[in-house]
Each structure stands twice: as structure tokens, then as C-alpha cells.
């Protein structure tokens, strides 16, 4: 997680030592639902410190990959190691405790709690939730939760009920709860889907700033190619349960095969990529 890796769009990934051990490593993952092959031989290494984008059409198996990596789904075949240790068969709880956080395509907030309570609960979950008689919002957790929310720009809505937030704020709160657990790797499922176009870049910038600051390695599923071009170190292109292409965005996003077969009409090559 050297500073160079985070240097900026120009030198993204350039100084990453080729022989570094991957933080997350998947080999030969297979999982079919009936006849649908949601994972059909996934091999992927996520390197420490990188931002890896996953793109691909609906139903390609992107969420399935995150679900398998977080213990929510068990692959029928293949291995996943995190930090050198196999994690297949561990519960989501055990995997979270090892340092893999995730956010959800549909934000999973405690809808009847305030945003502040959501954040405080995540912080308490990390610190040890088993205290039955001291208030959740006692000073320590309250202040830590406010600090966390402020970093995500959510300070002003801290007292709102979580179900009263707009989609962008919900997505950010969802990710904030993952970050509260101080993961080394976060897997984000479509952090910008459903977010109004005008808000989108602002949200991603906030997000990337917080994640870079904390030195977290990130994998994110993304449909917006401008976001991918701007913030990803590498892009993995999912197609029918397989990885169809993998590489730096300027290469992948200009690959005619990828454009034709995978991105299709979803996007034209992003203006910023390729120079």
C-alpha cells in the first residue's frame, strides 16, 4: 500500500511490484443456479492497495463474486484465499472479522435507526457489541460515529432516520458502515447505481478520498464507464460468469471486443481514457 500506488490517475498501478502477494485470490470459482452459470471459472487476484473495478452486463455474475468472497454464497468449486488463508466455508461473520467489508447493491441499513445509530452500531460491532447496559450513543461511540459520517459528508443527515435518506446518501452510509469495521479490503456492489447523475461524481470522489486515506484496497462493481476510467487502477470485465478481460482501464475500455460484446450499448469509450 505504498503512496505511489495512490499517486493519481497517471501513475496508477505503475509502481506496483509485480511479485507482490495478492490480498484476495480466487481460483476456478464455479457456481450455477439451475442452468445459470453465475460463476464459470473465475480466476482473479486483487493486489494490496489497488482499486479494481468490475464491469459487465446484468446477470454476468458480479454480485455473485462478491457474495462468494464474503461467505454469503458458497462456490461449488474453486478456492478463495484472503491474506494467504482459505476463506471458503467461513461464515460472513468470520470473514468480516478477518477484514473483508462489503456494501450492497441495495443498501442494507437499519431503516428504523438514525444514520448516526447505524454508524455507531457498526463501530460498536467492531469494538465489541456485547455491552448490554451502557448506551450505544455514549460519548465515545457518538463522537467516532460523527467523525466517520463527517468524512463521508453525512454529518448533516446524522439525525435522520436511515429510510428517509436519498439514494446517494444511502449508498454512502452503507459504505461508511463497512468502513467502520476497519477492513483491509472492501467490496462495493454498485456504489453509484440509482444515484442522480449530478450527484454521482461527487459521491465517488468522497468515497475514493476516504478509502485512499485509510489505505483500503477496494473492489467495486460499476456500470458508469467514466467513473471506472477515472478511479480504477484495473478493470475486470465480467461476462456470463467469466472474466472476459482484465487490465488497466485505458486498455480494457478501448478493447473493441470488450466494447462490442460486453459493454455493448451501455457506454461509449470514456472521454478521458486512452491518453
Amino acid at each position, binding site marked *: 500500500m505504498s503512496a505511489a500506488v495512490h499517486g493519481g490517475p497517471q501513475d496508477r498501478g505503475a509502481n506496483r511490484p509485480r511479485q507482490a502477494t495478492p490480498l484476495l485470490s480466487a481460483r476456478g470459482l464455479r457456481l450455477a443456479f439451475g442452468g445459470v452459470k453465475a460463476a464459470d471459472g473465475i480466476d482473479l487476484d486483487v493486489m494490496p492497495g489497488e482499486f479494481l473495478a468490475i464491469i459487465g452486463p446484468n446477470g454476468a455474475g458480479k454480485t455473485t463474486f462478491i457474495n462468494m468472497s464474503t461467505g454469503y454464497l458458497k462456490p461449488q468449486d474453486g478456492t478463495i484465499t484472503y491474506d494467504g488463508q482459505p476463506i471458503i466455508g467461513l461464515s460472513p461473520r468470520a470473514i468480516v472479522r478477518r477484514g473483508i467489508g462489503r456494501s450492497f447493491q441495495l443498501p442494507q441499513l437499519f431503516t428504523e*435507526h438514525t444514520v448516526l445509530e447505524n454508524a455507531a*452500531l457498526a463501530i460498536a*460491532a467492531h469494538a465489541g457489541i456485547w455491552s448490554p*447496559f451502557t448506551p*450505544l450513543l455514549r460519548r465515545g461511540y457518538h463522537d467516532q460515529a460523527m467523525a466517520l459520517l463527517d468524512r463521508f459528508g453525512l454529518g448533516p443527515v446524522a439525525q435522520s432516520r436511515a429510510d428517509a435518506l436519498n439514494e446517494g446518501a444511502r449508498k454512502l452510509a452503507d459504505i461508511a458502515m463497512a468502513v467502520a469495521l476497519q477492513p483491509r479490503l472492501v467490496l462495493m456492489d454498485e456504489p453509484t447505481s440509482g444515484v442522480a447523475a449530478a450527484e454521482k461524481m461527487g459521491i465517488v470522489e468522497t468515497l475514493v478520498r476516504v478509502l485512499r486515506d485509510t489505505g483500503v484496497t477496494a473492489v467495486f462493481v460499476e456500470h458508469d464507464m467514466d467513473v471506472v476510467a477515472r478511479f480504477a487502477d484495473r478493470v475486470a470485465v465480467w461476462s456470463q460468469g467469466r472474466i472476459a478481460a482484465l487490465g488497466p482501464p485505458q486498455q480494457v475500455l478501448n478493447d473493441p471486443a470488450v466494447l462490442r460484446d460486453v459493454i455493448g450499448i451501455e457506454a461509449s469509450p470514456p472521454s478521458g481514457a486512452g491518453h
Partner: protein
Amino acid sequence: MSATDRALAAPPRTMRLPEALLAVLGAAALVLVAFLAPWLKFVLTVALAKGIAVLGILLLLRAGQVSFGHSMFLAVGAYTVAFLAPAVPEALLLLPLGALLAGILGLVIGLFVVRYRDIFFGMLNLALSMVLYSLLEKLYALTKGTDGIRVSGLTFAGITPDRETQEWVMFGLALVLAIGFGLLVRAYLASPMGRALAGIKTRETRLEFMGVSARRVLLFAYVMSAVMGGVGGTLVAMTTRHVTPQLAYWTSSGELVFIAILGGAGSALGPFLGATAFELVRVYAAAAVADAWQMILGGVLLAVILFAPGGLWGMLTSRLKGRGA
């Protein structure tokens, strides 16, 4: 938001002051009534005892779960008193013993039922309570079946009070325990574990992805609720001086759920409001219209669900808020 959702919603923060104030006023009112109408002391004591058991129902409601078998813990507390009183007549020992046994049973049953949710959770509790009911009914040699057991003479801190004094002692004990458990539940619901408990209702998966076992969170609440059921049961047995299997029958469990909804789940005061109203209506309606009183209770419940989903507690606080505004 459905009616039940509203009934189960956590109270807004602004309710805190009236809550403390109402608790003090309510306790004072109970003492006053017990003074002015001594024949109601018995009714109020039973109401407080049931209120403690209903507090346990409230905990589970916060997780969105309804137990239709919770009176089994009340029965365990009550039969503990009935069985042991001849050997250990000391009420101040029987009380924690009843709570402990109910808690142990709650742990054993809890380990099983916290794996289930919603209708399965409710019905499993019901089924297990009916097992206890049949045991109490069928093991005649031990329990005297449906005849029940008379509770033999009790001592309080070694003293055997006369009847009038004992009524006051039981009333006082129930009131003190009600306040104690009310405060405990209030603190618990605001704690990380209590807030996580409420999270089971809305986003259980998120708890797991925070590294927290939702089952363990629910189990703690379940054991706590069983202990409170046990405490309620010991108090009921010591007050009524007679225990029968009816205590564990499913209608008794239904009554606890009824009281929880009547009182409102928004505050730890709800169960006591509900239990007091329930017992008073029962006494007066039963006297006035004999067997039709269940119909009155049914009507009241219907009205609460339709027009005051926050229960009596919700009605009271919205009144106060309306006046304050």
C-alpha cells in the same frame, strides 16, 4: 408503514422526559389507589407481576418477533414457588430461584428457537409451552394436575407477616421489581445490544456482515425475557397463593401478547399501563357483565389496533405532545 410497524416503532427521543415523569406519577397513583381501595391491592400486584413478564414480550417485539408461548416461563416461576415453598418458605430466596430456573429454561429453549423467525418463532414457542402445560397437567402425582398446588406459608426476610401486611409487602415488592426491570430494560434497549436487537427487525443480514451474530443478540434478549417471565410468575404465585397448569396454557401467553399490544411497545412503561388496564377492566367488566368480559377485551384490542397502534402508551404521549405544542 403498517399498523404493527407503528406499534413496534421505537419512541422518538423527545419522549424521554415524560417517560420518567409518567413513571413516577404512575407509581404514585398505584400506591394511592392501593391505599384508598385496599381490595384492589391484589389486582394491582398481579398487574405489576404480569407487567414484568410483558416487558419480556416487549423485548422480543423490538426484534419483530412475537412469542405465543411465553407464559411457560411465568409458569416455571410460579411452580418453583409452589414446589419449593414447603422446604424453602423464604420469598426473597424463592424469587431469584424462580428467575434462575426460568432463565435456564429460557437458555435451553432459546438456543433452539432463536434460529427461527416470525411465524415459526411464534409457533415454536407456543408448541413448547403446550408441552410444559401437558406435563403440568398430566404428572398428577407431582403437580396435582388441573387442581393445582396451594402455595404454603411464606416468610419475608425471615418474618411471617400477617395477611394485611403481606399484601402490602407483595405489592411493594412487585412495584420495586417493576421499576427495577423497567429501568433495566430501558438501559438495555438503548445499549449496543439493544439497538442491535432492534436491527434484527429491519436488517438482520447487516448484523451478520458487521461480524455480529444475530442469533446471539436475540438469545440474550430471549433469556432476559424468560427471566422476567419467571419473576412475574413467582410474584403471581406468591400473591394468588395457588398455581394451576392454566398459567402455561396458550391463552395465558396470548394474554401477555394482548397486554403488550394494549400497553404499547414504545416504552418500558407500556407493559405496566397495559397490564393495569387489563386487570382493572377484567375485574370491573367481569363484575358488570359476567362472561361477556372477553368480548369487551376483544373490542378494546380491536380499537387499539385500528385507532391507537402505539397502544395506551402511544395515546398518552401523543396527548401530552398535543398539549405541549
